[in-house]
């Protein structure tokens, strides 16, 4: 359904480590952007980790634009300054080629986190890992969305009418979210009555949620794919009897879960995911074994589940 033709043209062997001491690593860290607190936390952690292992690290701000990020990677390769890329892609497909062909050709190690690359966004588990890269660190893969949807289904034995608020079409998270939401079609008593794509901003989510609620007075649940949007949803829903499921798990969201404003929030771990992605490169250089797929939802930072609810919210610590 994704229109992805076979992407197995990349060499699937990881290149040999270009250096043998992690302290000799010169890391280009490609952030999706810099302009939200999630990314600020990631960047902060990245610098910390680089300090710990004694490696150099430069941050590239992808400005939420896949082509900008592509251009930055090309330029980083041209400059010859780096021997490792740690990448949080804006779009896993646009940068597939450069990460699986051009980077290895220049003896640059690649570690990916947050979004899978090369059309693997809708794959499950280990399959989100692209051979040729060092590892993939993820906590918002299709499996997580499926578990999230299942969580909603389980919590409502009598069924429910559901509204979905996603980011823009074509965004990997949106694709996974909507793909996972198909499970509602098969579940008894569940119906997706409204669904709206936004640009991830609070005001747009507010408008969308307000209109949805207005047009569907019998809606029971809104699932929002990002805490930034959820803030708008919470304001729009006001005192109406609608449960809000959030994906993000930032400080605000955990506070809302605690006070009952949100039914639950899926934890995202910007610091953890960045740390794992950088440490994976260091480990590989050290000659240690590195897991192809590091599943953040199984992280020790979490109390065994990524879903924070009123009952277990005390066990969670927001990372941003």
């Amino acid at each position, binding site marked *: 359904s994704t229109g992805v033709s076979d992407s197995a043209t990349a060499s699937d062997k990881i290149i040999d480590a270009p250096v043998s001491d992690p302290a000799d690593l010169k890391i280009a860290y490609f952030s999706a952007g810099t*302009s*939200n607190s999630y990314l*600020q936390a990631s960047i902060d952690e990245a610098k910390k980790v680089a300090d710990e292992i004694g490696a150099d690290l430069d941050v590239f701000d992808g400005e939420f634009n896949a082509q900008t990020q592509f251009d930055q990677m090309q330029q980083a390769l041209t400059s010859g300054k780096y021997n490792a890329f740690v990448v949080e892609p804006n779009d896993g497909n646009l940068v597939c080629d450069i990460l699986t062909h051009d980077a290895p050709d220049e003896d640059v190690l690649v570690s990916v986190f947050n979004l899978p690359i090369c059309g693997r966004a809708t794959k499950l588990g280990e399959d989100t890992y692209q051979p040729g890269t060092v590892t993939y660190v993820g906590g918002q893969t299709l499996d997580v969305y499926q578990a999230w949807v299942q969580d909603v289904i389980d919590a409502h034995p009598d069924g429910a009418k559901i509204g979905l608020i996603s980011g823009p079409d074509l965004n990997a998270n949106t694709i996974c979210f909507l793909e996972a939401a198909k499970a509602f079609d098969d579940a008894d008593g569940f119906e997706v009555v409204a*669904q*709206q794509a936004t*640009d991830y901003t609070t005001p747009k989510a*507010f408008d969308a949620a307000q*209109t949805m609620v207005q047009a569907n007075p019998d809606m029971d649940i809104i699932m929002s794919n990002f805490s930034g949007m959820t803030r*708008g949803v919470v*304001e729009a829903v006001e005192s109406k009897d609608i449960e809000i499921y959030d994906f993000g798990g930032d400080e605000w969201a955990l506070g809302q879960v605690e006070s009952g404003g949100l039914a639950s929030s899926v934890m995202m771990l910007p610091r953890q995911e960045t740390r794992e992605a950088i440490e994976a490169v260091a480990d590989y250089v050290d000659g240690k074994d590195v897991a192809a797929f590091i599943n953040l939802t199984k992280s020790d930072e979490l109390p065994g589940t990524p879903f924070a609810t009123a009952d277990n919210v005390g066990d969670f610590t927001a990372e941003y």
Partner: protein
Amino acid sequence: MNQPTDLTPALATGTGAEPDRAAPEPQVLSRFAMIGVLVALVALATILYPGFLSPENLRDILLQNTAVGIVALGMTFVIISGGFDLSVGATYALGATVSAGVTISTGSPNVGLLAAIGAGAVCGVVNGLLVARLNINPFVATLGSASVISGIAYLYSNSAPFIVSDPNFKVLARSSMAGIPTPILILAVTFVVGGVLLAMTRYGRNIYAIGGNHEAAWLSGLRVTDLTASVYVMTGLLAAFAGTLDASRLGVGQADVGANIALDAIAIVIVGGTSLRGGEGAVWRSAVGLLIFATLTNLFYSLNLSQNWQLIAKGTIVLLAVALDSWSRNRRA
């Protein structure tokens, strides 16, 4: 050659003989074509979505479009004055950020509001200087200042949202007067004041003049530099205020909002029938344009139209509307 007395009646007869030269019908048609479009859209919306005309839905529509409406009001002035302002999105975001940030740091939403408006005024003054004094093309000037303003908003907020817990912060957007939500009242008042200012005062007349023929305005002794600058200042103020309103509505101020607000506001003004060439247009036209857009967006959300069909439908309707408008104008000529 003392026949002028002959001429007067002669010409008068001439005019009398062809009173239908400027027959009113086509003009009315063209002047009010967009109102027709709006009515048709509302009718369509009511058919497709029966709850469309419910008071709650109408209230939501207006609330959701208060901010862009206020920005479009400022843009109406800028465009009629022959200018252009692409920086309103950034100023809107700055207004939202500053009002929330200052409210948090001072504990007073009023100080936050004042700070935001002050920031908007500064943005407006800068744009005014660039355009009116340095004679920079307004498109480039405001594209450049937008970039700077946006950067400052990110810097100030440290790229993080300011989440305001103080309930007083929400009073501006959440209170009501006489049963009407305050933002809707504000929207109505600004449009009325703006309309009067533009249509019925010396200042308004002068704005039309500088937009319609800059040189003529200058030659007739108008202070074109100050006048030009003033519309940018007003627009900056309004944009920052719109940002404050939205921050109050959402309880959050952050720098990444408002990306589309400049283009949306311009589209609203122009779909209403104000000309981008300057010197023509009216505030009521922007009100009509605003309602057309608001109706469309509400309809799309209510109908759950997917993004691609939304894009196609919105584009098509805008094109049909302006084509109808242009056709009815040409028919007149």
